[in-house]
């Protein structure tokens, strides 16, 4: 069965700086993201993984090229239209979590939910379901980010990211600031969301995180250097692990 393309980026260009200090991140990059895929973008530090992901999600504008998100060229949208686009189509999970401090977990989620839903009770009910899904107990919902563990905070961040049922969930090194136990719990949430059909694009340089994806893209020298189809995630699947190891070895990681 042919996969449905949700994002199609063509001839993307991006550079930082000017004149002699210009740093070209990519000059003619083409990439498609498919619906229902858990796409993992890997690459060495400074390869432009996050930059690419933020371009694809409308967080950052490329210097050139086109990005069709469900048929709409988002590079043509102004800032306000991009904001409205993001609230409907995208969910974001960041490495540093960035929950709004002094706002409790429930309110953090509601702050995102009210952008698309008119009924606060509906948002609350959905938030409760999602909190249960990510294993955050009810007695934690009214706590602020400083009163809970990093893992709980990141899982709350995921709830905030998916409260509006985004078309694509983007995650930038979501376990980068977490210890091993918390990382596992967070990755489990991503896996369960993926299993429910959520399209996910995740940037990581962590092999354990990458194993959760079914499609691995490796960025090098401003291009898609290689791609690997790992298939659906299964716990303790040695074959997939070996396949990923082989792939990244080939990529020169």
């Amino acid at each position, binding site marked *: 069965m042919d996969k449905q393309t949700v994002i199609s980026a063509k001839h993307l260009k991006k550079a930082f700086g000017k004149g002699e200090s210009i740093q070209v991140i990519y000059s003619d990059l083409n990439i498609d993201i498919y619906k229902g895929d858990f796409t993992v973008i890997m690459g060495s530090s400074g390869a432009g993984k996050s930059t690419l992901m933020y371009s694809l999600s409308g*967080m950052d504008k490329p210097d050139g090229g086109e990005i069709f998100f469900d048929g709409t060229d988002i590079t043509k949208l102004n800032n*306000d239209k991009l904001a*409205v686009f993001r609230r409907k189509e995208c969910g974001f999970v*960041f490495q540093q979590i960035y929950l709004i401090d*002094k706002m409790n977990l429930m309110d953090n989620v509601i702050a995102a939910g009210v952008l*698309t839903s008119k009924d606060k009770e509906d948002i609350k009910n959905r938030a409760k379901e999602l909190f249960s899904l990510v294993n955050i107990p009810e007695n934690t919902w009214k706590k602020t980010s400083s009163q809970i563990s990093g893992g709980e905070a990141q899982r709350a961040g995921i709830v905030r*990211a998916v409260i509006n049922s985004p078309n694509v969930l983007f995650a930038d090194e979501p376990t980068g600031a977490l210890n091993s136990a918390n990382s596992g719990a967070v990755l489990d949430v991503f896996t369960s969301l993926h299993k429910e059909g959520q399209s996910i694009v995740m940037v990581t340089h962590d092999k354990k995180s990458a194993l959760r994806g079914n499609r691995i893209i490796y960025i090098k020298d401003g291009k898609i250097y290689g791609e690997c189809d790992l298939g659906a995630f299964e716990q303790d699947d040695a074959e997939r692990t070996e396949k990923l190891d082989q792939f990244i070895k080939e990529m020169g990681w």
Partner: protein
Amino acid sequence: MKKISTLTLHNLNKAKGQYISFGVFICLTAFIINIALVLAFQTFNAYDSLFEKLSAADINFIIPQIQDQEDLLTEVEGIDGVSFVEKHEGVFTSVTVREFAGSDFDMNTVFYNLDEERTLNLRDITESSEMSDNSVYIPMYMKELGGFAEGGSITYSIDGEEHTYHVGGILLEMQYGNYGTGMIGGYFPEAVYEDFAQEYSDHVITEYSLKISSTADLGEMKNTISEVLREKGIALLNINDRDTSKQTRTMVCTLLIVIFLALAAIILVVSIFLSNFRIRSAIEDELAQMGVLKAIGYTSSLIIASTVMPYMLVGIISTVIGIALSYAVLPSVAGILAIQSGFSYTPVFDSMALLIVLLTLMCAILLFSYLSAGKIHKLEPINAIRGITGDESTGQNVLLFIVSFGIMVLLSFAGTLLYNVNVKPDNFMNTLSEELPSVIFTAEDGKMTELKELLENDSRVRLFMEYASVPVSYEDGSLTAFVCEDFSKATNDICYEGHSPVNDNEVAIGNAISDKYPIGSNIELTVGDQSADYIVTGYIQSVNNAGAVCQLTREGYKKIGETINSVNVYLYEKTAEAFITEYEENHDTIIKSSVNFEQMSENGQMMYTGIVSVIVVILFIISVLMVLLVMYVLINSMISRRRQEFGIYKAIGYTNRQLTVKTALSFIPVVAVASIISAIAGLWYLPAINNVIFSLIGAIKNHFEVSVWILFVFAGMFTAVAFTISVLLSAPIKRITAYSLLKD
């Protein structure tokens, strides 16, 4: 709305202290502006209402009754624009009011028959005591400022003869209700008046009171009246009109409104800079969170709205509280104003003032907070998350500089006021008065030479000169003439342009008529039936007579009036009372009467010292409050932004005391530089401020000294206070621990 309410509440909740400090500023601003506006709207309206209620005349003029002519009434009625004329009788004389605010006070007074039937210039008796056969009713001004009360007594000294009356009551009237116009009223029951008028039959006057049509011009009307009287050879003793009276009686109110509005403007500017700084630091501090908000779909407008909204909410609540509080003090303020205005009213709630205060403050807050938050528009979400703003400055130093400069302007003004009223009171008194002698002696007829010989040989006397204040007339009305044997001997130069008269054909005129008579032109002055032309040599000021004054040399006055027989005596020491007693006992054949002017000046000075002290204390409190609140916002923001840095300092061994002092000291260079620059600039701006304020009350030239040392002392004190407050406010640094950083 729902989209921003969550964020708005969150913003309010996370920086309660900052919003409270902002609210205090806005509350204070609303408080002051509302007082100014309610006074502006209601004092003048209250005056107008009273004017209508008492059917006050638009123009009143008085002439000697002996010169009144049968056809004058018809002629005045025939003047174009005059709708109604009424004639009354009175007695116009110069009196010395004994124990006026504890001293003797010379006042031109018109005494009327209170029981006379009249339709114009009615009186409203507000307080009365039991009638007696020797009663006088006095204007409220005499009670509020002079200290006379119903049931008490009042003594008028006329040509050395004492008349003591029982104060039958206090009344409101619109003609001579305060001494700003140089005239005051007195009202006798019919029987008392008849006796008085008989005794002073030479001073009996006829007063013409005119109602004019709304389109008629008061100035032209007064000129026409003067012309009619001149043609008929009738002396015009005094003429007053509706507008001048109103301006005079509401002078202090106008002054207060100007000062209040200026003060409110300074506080508002500080609050705006404060909110600007707070918003800029909030953007800086919460950059990543703003980036996340943008990432999850908040538009810039929503984020800006949630940033501006708390300021609007706090602004509205604080404004309403400030306005409500102002109504608690407005009755007291109106009471203080009654001392000078001579009429009282009770301020009531003013919806127009509320609307203006609310709209002004809300527009200012909305505009400036929106402009400050406008930076959010330019934030790219990804850059914000990565902590890149492109502008690292939060404007802390700019804010601190402007606030310090502004507060120093307040302190410099207050300090200069204090210096010139308390340390060098003559500067202040000379601005408000003419000559300030120790004693004024009036010699018996033909005894002036003997009196001067006595004074010449008295070692206690520093200076003496023949000097008198006498009424003269010119074509448009009356003037108080200061007659002096030699103005070069005068101790207070009240001439602000040109020079005082030197020859007998010269005159210097007051600012009330300076527009009509340029320097070098001629003016005809009259006393009784004697007139002479004088060349205008300069302009003089007089706060007490609303500028309706002139200066004549002794010889110049002799051309139209009698020989003056009073002498200003200036003593080396403050021994006026003993000096007068001795002269009255030993030279009673030479001294006709005496005035302890030293006592009068001291009483006047005491009154002004009291008012100035209140103003200075208010300015000091507001200044300290502003420093406190601004430093609170700055230090709080700094501690929050540099929390990690303080933790590291602690980890490497800095003590709390070292960090507190280091933080407090980091503000001092800007505060000190701003204070010193403001102190130096004060040498230019303070005279300008003083000129504006004193011009409003008729003192075109003021004698205020701006002491650079006082300014520097205040700059030093301000810097020290700012440092102390900073040390106290930096205390929360103690709560930051190196360990907490690890947890963060």
